[in-house]
């Protein structure tokens, strides 16, 4: 069944057209990649899906529900989570707290219960702590639970951001350049990791990437964006041999 659908999505910033007529349909359990040269508008599309930008035109549907222009926190509550290109953790909070705060949207206790330290709240807090530690185990960060998030090395910060996103119990996970700054060994690990969490957590994944090794190596479906326009869509083989894609990345062959 269709999890995410976008129709004629466009974003104009004054006179600048960042994204034009973007269409996509992603089914449950799929792994789709969005690639394209820098400045093509990929992150802008993510921002529209997650509610950070309001589309100038077009509609977005999640699980059949129209989420166009909805507030980001409402969209997250519906089940879309994302990571950021330039990692936006909460640096002064501990690693564990960064994950725990991802559970906040599922909190049932009221502020009163929390403020007065009622046992009902205490039980929820214990559950959150347990599940958060489990999540940290799953990404291999349990040993650093009480360190300050801002002090983690870059690669681990990425993992933490993903763990935090997973804590919101999403159905669709948007990853914005998860492999940025990684060496081939780390990229390989990341590929395994993504496939694993897709299975363990029943996820659909839509990702933006520049690392072709990862994209061609594991994404069955790829969309290519250039200057806001979708110039190709298909399997890795089709994309690699598409002249328009080659032109967009390398420029024209003949002069």
């Amino acid at each position, binding site marked *: 069944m269709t999890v995410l659908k976008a129709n004629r999505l466009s974003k104009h*910033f004054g006179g600048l057209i960042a994204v034009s007529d973007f269409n996509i349909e992603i089914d449950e359990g799929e792994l789709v990649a969005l690639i394209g040269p820098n400045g093509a508008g990929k992150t802008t599309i993510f921002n529209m899906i997650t509610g950070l930008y309001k589309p100038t035109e077009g509609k977005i549907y999640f699980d059949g529900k129209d989420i166009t222009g909805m507030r980001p926190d409402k969209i997250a509550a519906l089940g879309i989570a994302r990571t950021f290109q330039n990692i936006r953790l909460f640096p002064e909070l501990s690693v564990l707290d960064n994950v725990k705060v991802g559970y906040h949207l599922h909190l049932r206790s009221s502020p009163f219960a929390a403020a007065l330290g009622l046992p009902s709240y205490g039980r929820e807090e214990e559950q959150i702590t347990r599940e958060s530690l489990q999540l940290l185990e799953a990404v291999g960060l349990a040993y650093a639970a009480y360190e300050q998030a801002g002090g983690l090395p870059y690669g681990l910060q990425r993992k933490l951001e993903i763990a935090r996103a997973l804590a919101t119990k999403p159905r669709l996970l948007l990853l914005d350049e998860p492999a940025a700054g990684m060496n081939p060994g780390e990229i390989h690990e990341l590929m395994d990791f993504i496939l694993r969490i897709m299975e363990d957590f029943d996820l659909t994944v839509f990702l933006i990437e520049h690392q072709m090794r990862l994209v061609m190596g594991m994404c069955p479906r790829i969309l290519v964006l250039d200057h806001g326009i979708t110039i190709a869509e298909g399997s890795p083989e089709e994309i690699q041999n598409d002249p328009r894609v080659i032109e967009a990345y390398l420029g024209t062959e003949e002069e």
Partner: protein
Amino acid sequence: MSLNMFLQHLANGLSLGGLYALIAIGYTMIYGVLRLINFAHGDVFMMGAYIAFYGVAIFSLPWYASFILSIVLSAILGMIVERVAYRPLRDVPRISALISTIGVSLLLENVGVVVFGGRPKAFPRPPLFNQEWNLGGVRVLSLTFFIIMASLALLIAVFYLVYRTKMGRAMRAVAWDFETAKLMGININQVISFTFAMGSALAAAGAIMWSMKYPQLLPLMGVIPGLKCFIAAVIGGIGSIPGAVLGGFLLGIGEIMVVAFLPELANFKYAFAFLALILILLLKPRGLLGKEMGEKA
């Protein structure tokens, strides 16, 4: 209300508006280059008034000499404040710098209480400004006329400085993009010092004219006009000099007119400026002439 009365109120409104505009420009210029609301600006205003007063009262200077001295010393005061209390905080979160301006404001006010004493002082009003003139049937204090003229002259000078000189261009560059201006070889510290000097000088000029209009000097006299003028700058669009001028005149004329047409609300005159602020921030936070700033993400 007769036409005569109306014109009289208008004249008063214009003169008050001119003063508000002069002080509002200082706020807006400082916000433009530093993205900082200088809560201490109103207290520089106060200092300007007192310096002018003491020049005449203690040092027996002729009024024009005392006024000029006050403007110069206030400009220097502004530069010192920037150097000591704001420059060290240039790279820290804005809120800390904001608190620093509150600290400077408190310090200036309390120093004022200690040095000048809490009892009101009477600002001199030279005879030239104390005459009653009859301009085309409208009875107006000569002071009102001079204030309007002086404000206009100063405003023209400001526009010339900002839009026609090299320093003015540098100021606008820094206000537009701090980092790039630095990379283009502009001496940021010099530009910022100059901005503070200019803003403080205008505040002192405004203070002198204000004190001739409302002769009672008190250490806390700068607080309310300072807040009102900042509100005027925000209404016009903070960071925009034309905006500050527009906001100043709107506020000045508005205040006088509201009381003129609805005298029952005279006591709430003070709240008028604040209510206008709340409205503008809710309906058009960039201000009437303000520029658009970036989007969310």
